[in-house]
């Protein structure tokens, strides 16, 4: 399983909303985080999220499961280890 955790605050919520539309499994946790996950490979594109680069490059600050295969201004790809 590949996953990232967003902090459940307004800055990151557009990413969660878009991730659901991008086919990821999105779970709001009681601890104040939102988990985005996908079996095998997690791919998230920035453009549909609408967030600017400073927020984008800090999105996984809540946590990471797997290995970052690619993280540039357009795409985050996490692969299951």
């Amino acid at each position, binding site marked *: 399983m590949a*996953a990232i955790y967003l*902090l459940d605050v307004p*800055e990151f919520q557009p990413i969660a909303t878009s991730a659901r539309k991008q086919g990821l499994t999105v779970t709001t946790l*009681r*601890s104040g985080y939102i988990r985005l996950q996908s079996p095998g490979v997690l791919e998230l594109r920035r453009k549909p999220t609408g967030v600017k680069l*400073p927020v984008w490059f800090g999105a996984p600050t809540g*946590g*990471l499961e797997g290995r970052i295969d690619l993280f540039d201004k357009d795409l985050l790809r996490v692969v299951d280890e």
Partner: protein
Amino acid sequence: MQLKEGVMQSNEGRIAKPRLQGVHHTARPTWKLRETVEFYRDRMGLALVHAISAKGWGPPGHPDFLHFFFDSGNGSTIAFFYYIGVEQPDYLRHRVQWDGDSVHTSWGVERQEELLEWKAALEARGVDVFMRVHHELIDSIYFRDPNGYLLEITWQIRPMNALDAGDAERTLEAAIAVESEAAAAGTALKNIEGIWRRKAQLVRALEAKE
């Protein structure tokens, strides 16, 4: 939520007493006396409110100096030292890049309109406002003083809350743990991934407690 209350208590316990009441002054050296005064007083419009001029005292070899303060609002000042007869050493020449610029001053404004007013006012007075960045919590403009020092004016978009504080605690807990383990193994951290992986463990443990 029990968790959030717990986080707040832990932070409050650490800062209860004694308390600080914000910034009184920060100070940096200048080798551009006239330009510095003209920039802060005349271009930024910050009142010059205090100046010490003194014969060198204290440690042996301390030069005669000026130490002067500009009012930056809400009881705070920004101050400079001008050392007389001392050439600027290379190690105090400001490096205009990310590492040198990590030392910077950021002033707050209360409303976004004020941030935009500052941008317009500075530009009208010939100051190059070279960047505006909308960070996670803050919206900022950036410019430089005649010394090259990086200056920022920022508007905080929302108050920091217990979630932010708890997350900060977990980020630093993860980072310190991973860094310590690397040091014990004779290596150093190379990127952020290990910290983020440890953070996920902390979040999972927290979720299990809920």
